[in-house]
């Protein structure tokens, strides 16, 4: 039918060329508008969520959660705002087919026959250069690939301190950067779609990238959106899926100072309808350490609860993590964790492959993330503080992390202090709640006879110290650290050093300029 209409349109256009006629132009405009918005247009907004079970109610299945007693009040989801940070710097390869080909080529210099991977920065790579030509930067020679590694004592395996694209990532010894930064891109958009379908009140989307054909292995984006910014493409798709959701998109780089201020401001800002201020939860779906540290910084400063997610660059493992500033470890409290792959690394073929990315793993991690977010917001079930996912063994490690009192992030330390100070109020609230529950329970005892003298012991206080002791260093099986920590704790340096540099900044600048120009 489309082609037929277009042909008719073309005929009319030709006729118009011969003899201008304003009325005909108006008719044609109407017809084109009709073609742009198909008859089965997006549904109109729905004011109240109804639990009525009819074909036309998009929320009937969701509201059934309430009737089954899983969620107390599902409709509350419309009051919540979630920010999804999805900055995928990505690998530039997608722009150059020639390099995609070369990327598949096994770059043999990186792997020597012994099976040990070598540092490509070792001098042996490439033809030897004449000594006379050695005038450039010093060639740092690293005979073996030995970046400070993290050792998993139980397995005796080396986890290499690669760029932390995602703490769920596996260390890969050679620095093909296209191996990381690729992992997570899909999670944010899929999570956004899930939340949209759940009928979340407001979604803020952060990204600074455009859709490329290379993104088509991901869920969500369509080939006809190539060239749009990812946030615009997302808003287009999401508003079609559920017009009830308020969508705000920000296309910016949050790691720069300017982008960060905008990011911080938008997290605090009142929503456009003025109903609520700020956001209720931030979901970090970024793919690199730098961006995660930025989200961490922002959330620590605002005292904003957030959730972290990551998929490894080989697409077989991932994780989600809940971070409550002051209460749980922040992202800077300890080096990021990785989920050990659990298989012999030598069996994994790594040479010269591009970063892998499976829609399935991304879907699983996005599902875990949004599920945790829903549990947190709608207060049902148990919210996981950390949940890993190893798809090769279908292993899901969980753990809890206490904040590091010596955390390098001052905002985190400040939040920890506030959390400690609010302990009496929290205890009182918990006690009141317990008493209320107890009084409710007293009314009808569950068991009248208790032959075995079974009693319930309150363990809320006794558990804490043991978690504390395991907090920083020992990790559950299957989890290892990704980056090394600083050798020792650095006492915050008092401005003693100010005496050491008494020149002012302009003087130092002048000195450097003088060196530069000589």
């Amino acid at each position, binding site marked *: 039918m489309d082609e037929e209409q277009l042909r008719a349109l073309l005929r009319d256009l030709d006729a118009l060329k011969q003899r201008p006629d304003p009325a005909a132009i108006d008719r044609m405009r109407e017809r084109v508008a009709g073609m742009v918005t198909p008859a089965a247009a997006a549904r109109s907004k729905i004011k109240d969520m109804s639990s009525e079970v009819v074909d036309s109610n998009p929320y009937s299945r969701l509201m059934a959660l309430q009737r089954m007693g899983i969620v107390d009040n599902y409709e509350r989801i419309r009051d919540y705002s979630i920010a999804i940070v999805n900055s995928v710097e990505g690998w*530039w390869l997608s722009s150059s087919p020639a390099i995609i080909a070369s990327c598949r080529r096994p770059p043999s210099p990186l792997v020597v026959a012994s099976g040990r991977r070598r*540092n490509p920065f070792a001098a042996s790579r490439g033809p030897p250069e004449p000594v006379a030509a050695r005038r450039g930067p010093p060639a*740092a020679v690293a005979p073996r690939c030995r970046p400070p590694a993290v050792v998993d004592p139980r397995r005796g395996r080396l986890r*290499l301190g690669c760029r932390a694209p995602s703490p769920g990532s596996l260390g890969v010894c050679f620095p093909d950067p296209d191996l990381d930064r690729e992992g997570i891109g899909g999670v944010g958009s899929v999570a956004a779609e899930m939340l949209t379908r759940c009928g979340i009140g407001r979604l803020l989307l952060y990204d600074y990238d455009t859709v490329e054909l290379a993104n088509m292995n991901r869920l969500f984006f369509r080939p006809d959106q190539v060239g749009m910014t990812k946030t615009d493409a997302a808003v287009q798709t999401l508003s079609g899926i559920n017009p009830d959701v308020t969508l705000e998109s920000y296309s910016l780089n949050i790691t720069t100072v300017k982008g960060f201020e905008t990011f911080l401001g938008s997290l605090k800002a009142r929503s456009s309808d003025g109903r609520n201020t700020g956001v209720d939860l931030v979901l970090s779906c970024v793919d690199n350490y730098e961006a995660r540290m930025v989200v961490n910084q922002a959330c620590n400063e605002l005292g904003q609860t957030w959730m972290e997610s990551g998929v490894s660059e080989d697409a077989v493992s991932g994780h989600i993590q809940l971070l409550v500033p002051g209460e749980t470890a922040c992202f800077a409290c300890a080096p990021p964790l990785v989920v050990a792959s659990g298989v012999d690394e030598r069996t994994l073929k790594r040479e010269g492959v591009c970063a892998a990315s499976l829609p399935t793993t991304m879907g699983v991690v996005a599902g875990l993330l949004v599920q945790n977010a829903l549990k947190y917001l709608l207060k049902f079930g148990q919210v996981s503080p950390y949940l890993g996912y190893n798809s090769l063994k279908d292993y899901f490690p969980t753990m809890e992390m206490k904040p590091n009192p010596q955390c390098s992030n001052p905002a985190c330390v400040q939040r920890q202090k506030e959390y400690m100070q609010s302990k009496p109020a929290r205890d009182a609230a918990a006690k009141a709640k317990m008493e209320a529950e107890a009084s409710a329970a007293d009314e009808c005892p569950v068991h009248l006879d208790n032959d075995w003298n079974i009693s319930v012991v309150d363990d809320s206080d006794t558990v804490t110290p043991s978690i504390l002791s395991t907090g920083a260093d020992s990790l559950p099986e299957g989890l290892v650290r990704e980056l090394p920590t600083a050798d020792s704790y650095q006492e915050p340096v008092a401005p003693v050093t100010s005496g050491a540099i008494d020149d002012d900044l302009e003087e130092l600048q002048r000195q*450097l300029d003088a060196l530069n120009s*000589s």
Partner: protein
Amino acid sequence: MEGWDKGTKSVVGEIPLLSTRAGPRDGEAWRQRLKEEYRALIAYTSVNKSKDNDWFRISAANPEGTRWEGTCWYVHNLRRYEFPLQFDIPVAYPQVAPEIELPTLDGKTHKMYRGGKICLTVHFKPLWAKNCPRFGIAHALCLGLAPWLAAEVPILVDSGMVKHKDDEAAPADAAAAASGSAAAS
């Protein structure tokens, strides 16, 4: 630092370490950090000059010192290859290392992220994490960018991805010469 050559190690030893843990949003503390950055850069540039191993120019591109620009060069087979150099100081600095960019090489090597950010993942990021906040811009250049250039430039030149600036004009000259000879015949 094991695995690094003696020359680099001794040069790194001569760069003064920094002590202030402050990022670009920390006001007066950032000014102090900036002073330390300058001191380290001045020391490193002087050391390079004294060893006849000068290989970069860098200066702050804005008064706040959050953006840096300059050039760096590498000599391969007696020819000098020069590249513009730039980076922003990230918000989470110094916890997070600066991401050094060589924009003219963007798309020419896969040891790079989008926008010409060189890959520092394996050879430098762990060192930076271990030495935070004592390492600064000078250390990032010495231990991050320098080895990257030493490893990548020879390959880029040999594979023809990067042409010397004298050679770039050559094809046009050759074409002109060819058309000239054709006209003569």
